[in-house]
């Protein structure tokens, strides 16, 4: 038989088996299945388990109970079953706006980040001077704390003294100043633009790393075959970065869909709910309106979306880790 299953599976080198013969006790089938490292293995995981149970599973289970109550902040409330969920899904027009906003915000932001990130990666994948320096410099929006980015852009979008209006007026692109964040027509778009600015370097750097891992002889072979730049992009570059692109896009989708800070700090969800997302709406209902049971139900409605996205992402990440 040789190596126990668990070792063979992990691809442990044969030297490992030869190195420690003294620890190879006769295996019963149970010990074989659990593995001889089990006691220490589980012991080292205890602190992690405490965090997982104490700060994730238990709070979520506890909060699920609260989402079934008509409960105000700080007091007990009556059990109303799925009442909060039913109200949200059938009766709450604001919640419908929130869902629409979240979808538009996520789709537009992630698409924009992918496009600007891809172009950034393609530029930096060329032979240019000071490439490392430019890569570091272009990472700035992603490195800067989000609250700083949000406040700075809020200032730049200012309706009366904002520099964006100043520049656009001087370039004669607009005739009158626009209150970007105070008008429902422009607010969501303005927040999305800031979010793209903040997030595209993440894609740029990740995609650049993937592009640099593509063997140069693939491009040489394409050149020999007389491929155009576009053909090389579609047939060599894109297949080479596919996994990275999928992983970064999924991660970014999860984070963008669950964003709080950028909207909260730039518009507070306004004007008139035009920019509210799940998290900002739950915050408003729970902490400004004190309806904590209802607010909990709002965050819990994120869960189905989230589970689908994580299920899609998990095998991709496992694959990229193995590559």
């Amino acid at each position, binding site marked *: 038989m040789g190596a126990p299953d668990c070792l063979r599976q992990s691809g442990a080198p044969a030297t490992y088996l030869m190195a420690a013969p003294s620890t190879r006790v006769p295996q019963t089938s149970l010990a074989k299945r659990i593995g001889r490292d089990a006691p220490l293995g589980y012991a080292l995981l205890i602190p992690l388990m405490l965090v997982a149970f104490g700060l994730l599973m238990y709070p979520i289970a506890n*909060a699920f109970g609260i989402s079934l109550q008509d409960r105000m902040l700080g007091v007990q409330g009556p059990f109303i079953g799925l009442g909060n969920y039913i109200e949200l899904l059938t009766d709450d027009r604001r919640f419908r706006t929130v869902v629409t906003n979240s979808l538009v915000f996520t789709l537009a932001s992630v698409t924009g980040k992918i496009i600007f990130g891809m172009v950034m990666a393609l530029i930096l994948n060329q032979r240019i001077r000071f490439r490392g320096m430019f890569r570091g410099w272009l990472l*700035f929006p992603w490195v800067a704390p989000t609250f700083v980015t949000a406040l700075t852009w809020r200032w730049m979008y200012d309706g009366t003294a904002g520099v964006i209006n100043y520049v656009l007026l001087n370039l004669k692109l607009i005739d009158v100043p626009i209150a970007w964040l105070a008008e429902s027509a422009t607010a969501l778009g303005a927040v999305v633009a800031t979010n793209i*600015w903040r997030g595209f370097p993440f894609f740029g*750097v990740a995609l650049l790393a993937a592009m640099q891992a593509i063997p140069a002889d693939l491009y040489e072979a394409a050149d020999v075959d007389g491929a155009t730049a576009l053909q090389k992009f579609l047939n060599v570059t894109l297949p080479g970065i596919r996994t990275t692109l999928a992983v970064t896009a999924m991660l970014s989708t999860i984070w963008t869909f669950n964003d709080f800070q950028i909207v909260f700090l730039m518009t507070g969800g306004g004007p008139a709910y035009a920019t509210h997302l799940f998290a900002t709406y739950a915050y408003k209902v729970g902490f400004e309106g004190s309806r904590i049971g209802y607010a909990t139900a709002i965050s819990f409605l*994120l869960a189905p979306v989230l589970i689908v996205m994580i299920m899609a992402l998990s095998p991709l990440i496992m694959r990229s880790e193995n590559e």
Partner: protein
Amino acid sequence: MMMKRLRALPNRIRLYGLLAVYVLVVSFPFYYMVLTSLRTQKDVYNKEGMLTPVNLILDNYGIVLGSTNMTTWVTNSVFVGVASSAIALVIGTLAAYSLARLRFFGSNALARSVLFMYLVPSSLLFIPLYLIIANLGLLNSLWALILTYQTFNVPFCTWMLLGYFRTIPMELEDAARIDGCSRLGVLGRIILPLSAPGLVTAFIFSFTNSWNEFLYAAVMATRSELKTIPVGLYSFQIADILLWGQLMAAAILATAPVLVLYMLVQRFVVQGLTAGSVKG
């Protein structure tokens, strides 16, 4: 017509032109932030010479450091960042060693569930955590933040170190075991010294993620003397008049440490990206 002219240009010029646009778009907000921080409240609203560096003063920095709670917030942020990252690093090191090197029933499934833990977003967790922290009577204490930040720092450190530990050749560990080293001895004498860059990077990423965290801090530490920087800055702007000069000065002070830390670990940023990081 413009497109045609653009196409006629040689490749290199187009390439550098595009790069220049990127550099400009990325740098401009930073430039304008610095400029605003160096102006009086009156000049901030002055449209003459909005983009040129004239009439600059340093007063805003003096005001922010001298007559606001900024120094308290910085202290709070540093304390929370260091404590939560240090705890997460210890928990993450133990877990990552177990998952990377020891073989036992369920280890692969457990490694995968670390990733799940990491992907549970704060927008789903903030109310459940708030309720637990309130039950424990820890609201309005910095321990509320140190505790709740483990929800993202622990899975992050574990996942990142798991990848790092796997790159260390098994042969080194085998050799030490032959010489009579125990499993924990191997961790202390072989794995940890060799992983020093990984440990430093994990710590710095955790620290910056804690430094930037807003939502948990906004609901759990609301008393002014307990605020961290992001929440503290937000309180600059609830007042009727937004003091943009001071706000931008404070924002720059809050960004500087993060920038310095990132420069230290720039080489590892790409690895950190695959391990994930709070923003995206």
